[in-house]
């Protein structure tokens, strides 16, 4: 199953996603990229229903780029996350809701690094760490146990490596 993880560090956000595009029991691609670059300092990770994921993510991506063209400056990560959530919410009770789960990672010059968790019900939460997929059931507790809002680079990478070391064999 599709897996996303994000962890916020002192001046960066670390994100990772699996590379499999599956259709039922068949892996159609093993090198599939689930990250969408919204701007130089914002990444959107997107998983969920086939077709919806790319269509929704590209829609958000193009709108963020359009904002920059029109206004001369970029949307902040927080603004981009709220824009994304609003779109999810508006479509939720329409005939065509988007069944997608998202992580938005960004760096704001004034606010610093930020990680935003969103799901298909249009919830939004800014969190120090987050994950989507069955793998989240195994890794959230690892991060609860070991995560510290760190001053040193190593202290964030170590728990994230533990997460990936655990999830990849477990999900196979």
């Amino acid at each position, binding site marked *: 199953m599709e897996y996303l993880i994000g962890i916020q560090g002192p001046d960066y956000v670390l994100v990772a996603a699996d590379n499999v*595009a599956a259709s039922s*029991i068949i892996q159609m691609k093993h090198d*599939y990229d689930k990250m969408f670059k919204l701007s130089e300092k914002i990444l959107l990770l997107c998983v969920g229903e*086939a*077709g*919806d994921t*790319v269509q929704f993510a590209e829609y958000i991506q193009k709108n963020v780029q359009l904002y920059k063209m029109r206004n001369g400056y970029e949307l902040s990560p927080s603004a981009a996350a709220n824009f994304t959530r609003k779109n999810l919410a508006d479509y939720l009770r329409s005939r*065509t809701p988007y069944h997608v789960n998202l992580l938005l990672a960004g760096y704001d010059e004034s606010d610093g690094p930020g990680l935003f968790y969103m799901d298909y019900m249009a919830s939004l939460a800014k969190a120090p760490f987050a994950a989507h997929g069955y793998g989240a059931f195994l890794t959230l507790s690892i991060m609860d146990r070991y995560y510290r809002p760190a001053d040193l680079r190593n202290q964030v990478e170590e728990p994230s490596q533990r997460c990936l070391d655990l999830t990849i064999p477990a999900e196979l």
Partner: protein
Amino acid sequence: SNDVNKVIEINPYLLGTMSGSAADCQYWERLLAKECRLYRLRNNHRISVAAASKLLCNMMLGYKGMGLSVGSMVCGWDKEGPGLYYVDENGTRLSGRMFSTGCGNGYAYGVVDSGYREDMTVEEAYELGCRGIAHATHRDAYSGGVVNMYHMQEDGWIKVCKEDVSQLIHRYKEGMF
């Protein structure tokens, strides 16, 4: 009928395959062919494989949830080189080096994944392609008929062969279970 061609020849540099509902595939891929021709007339250069597959993908998304059944591969050669995209009725669009579609696709994946080598010759690749279809047809109740094989090259596609699957199975019989 037994000799249905499930490959639509969009233009000398673009092919589309069809699986799922025959009606849906024929309709939407012929519409794609029309759009590709219009693109060429309006822009004075041939449409890229990425763009052609995205056109089909967006047609599918317009009718998402309404019961279309299309599993197709758009194959062509453009400025970026050879291109292969898988497009289905959900709006999934994947670029890749090998795909198999339709209800016997698992059987084909098994044979092709096992027999594939990076350094295959063209003749070996033709043989592997035929094998994939033949073995899938053998096991899958809903597959049959003929193998229509095309080879996409830099200066366009060529039709390699049109082989009856029962003849192929007969030829392979010695080495099969």
